[in-house]
């Protein structure tokens, strides 16, 4: 029996989760919500994490009904992400690991998303679409690596949604992407937007500039409603994602597709993926916001796998790094 605790703080969510042999015992999270129209800055986000880390940690222990004695390994997010928030979160992890006399594991955030998705859905060897505020990747596992088949060549899809939400001054609570999804349900007039797929890769920055520039006048003239624009944006960016995912599935002959990352809890994206998968006789695996959005349990789960395969990270090596690619990690726990 192995009990792992995971600390996540690479962006605006501070999460602590406890996982015991594939069972999530607790997974509380606290989100730094900025006013409409504003993104989150590293300094303020780090401060948020420092203010809330200890209460979230206490909640994780209480909900799991676990005492520090029962924990075997302390896992934390090494990167990728924003420097200051990563470090503030790692500091709590390092301190409790020493107080409790436990080994540590440094976890790649992207690997955390993938392993959590695999755990929750039971998908065995899926093509993974990883879509979040900082990442957009199509991934296939082979020979102890999660290999990136295709990715964005500029901004992440979540970043594109978040920045458009700022133009419309939508609330950031619980997330800009969620609020775009709600408005999109009521939109129906489609605005043609730049659709950029290059081989296995996608690009969103041209599309974002286009809609950022056009939106104010289209809305002012009453030609399109905010709902129509959210609808058009979603339909376009999701179609691009489906296209590159389908290409990867065809290439690998895969019968499974898994969506992870914050944008992955979008129901419309899941629906479009489901349609594509069905046509190919494949199966879609997706999760909800508890496990899609950054959380502590995903770091605990990836750390649990690493720990069981014999890894630990010496304290002096528990650094953080803003850049840390998915395909840099040796996947020692899969064959």
């Amino acid at each position, binding site marked *: 029996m192995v009990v792992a605790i995971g600390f996540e703080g690479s962006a605006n969510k501070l999460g602590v989760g406890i996982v015991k042999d594939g069972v999530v015992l607790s997974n509380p999270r606290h989100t730094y919500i900025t006013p409409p129209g504003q993104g989150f800055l590293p300094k303020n986000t780090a401060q948020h994490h420092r203010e809330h*880390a200890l209460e979230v940690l206490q909640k994780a222990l209480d909900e799991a009904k676990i005492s*520090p004695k029962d924990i075997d390994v302390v896992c934390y997010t090494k990167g990728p992400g924003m420097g200051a928030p990563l470090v503030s979160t790692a*500091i709590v992890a390092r*301190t409790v690991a020493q*107080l409790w006399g436990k080994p540590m594991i440094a976890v790649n955030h992207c690997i955390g998303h993938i392993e959590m998705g695999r755990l929750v859905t039971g998908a065995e060897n899926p093509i993974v679409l990883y879509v979040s505020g900082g990442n957009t990747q199509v991934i296939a596992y082979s020979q102890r690596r999660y290999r990136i088949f295709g990715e964005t060549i500029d901004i992440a899809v979540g970043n594109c949604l978040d920045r458009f939400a700022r133009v419309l001054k939508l609330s950031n609570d619980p997330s800009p992407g969620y609020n775009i999804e709600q408005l999109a349900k009521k939109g129906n007039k489609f605005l043609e937007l730049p659709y950029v797929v290059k081989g296995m890769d996608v690009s969103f920055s041209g599309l974002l500039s286009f809609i950022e520039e056009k939106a104010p006048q289209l809305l002012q003239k009453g030609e399109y409603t905010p709902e129509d624009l959210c609808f058009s944006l979603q339909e376009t960016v999701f179609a691009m994602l489906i296209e590159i995912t389908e290409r990867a599935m065809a290439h690998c002959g895969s019968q499974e597709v898994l969506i992870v990352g914050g944008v992955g809890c979008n129901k419309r994206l899941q629906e479009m993926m489901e349609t594509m998968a069905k046509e190919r006789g494949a199966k879609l695996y997706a999760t909800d916001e508890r496990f899609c959005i950054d959380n502590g349990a995903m770091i605990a789960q990836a750390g649990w796998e690493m720990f069981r395969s014999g890894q630990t990270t010496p*304290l*002096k090596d528990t*650094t953080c790094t803003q850049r840390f690619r998915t395909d840099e990690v040796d996947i020692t726990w899969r064959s």
Partner: protein
Amino acid sequence: MTEKKLKVDLSVPFPTEREAQIACGTLSVDSEPKRGGVKKELVVKGNVLNIHFEALEARMMRVGMNSFFDHLNLVIETMEKFGPPEK
């Protein structure tokens, strides 16, 4: 050669030597950003954590020390809530 560096020496006492070592362990891991031009050295003597800072400009010293104090406070609070260390 004339000295051009700013220097600060800071001493932080902890309840026990073990706690001073834990704080030192946590706070020694991250290197200062290279372009910041701040250097810090941490040494434990008894129950005291001694930190020596060097910087080329007062402005940089302030930035380095501000973030150090943010982190130090977090370590102390974590020890208060989740300590004392296991034997």
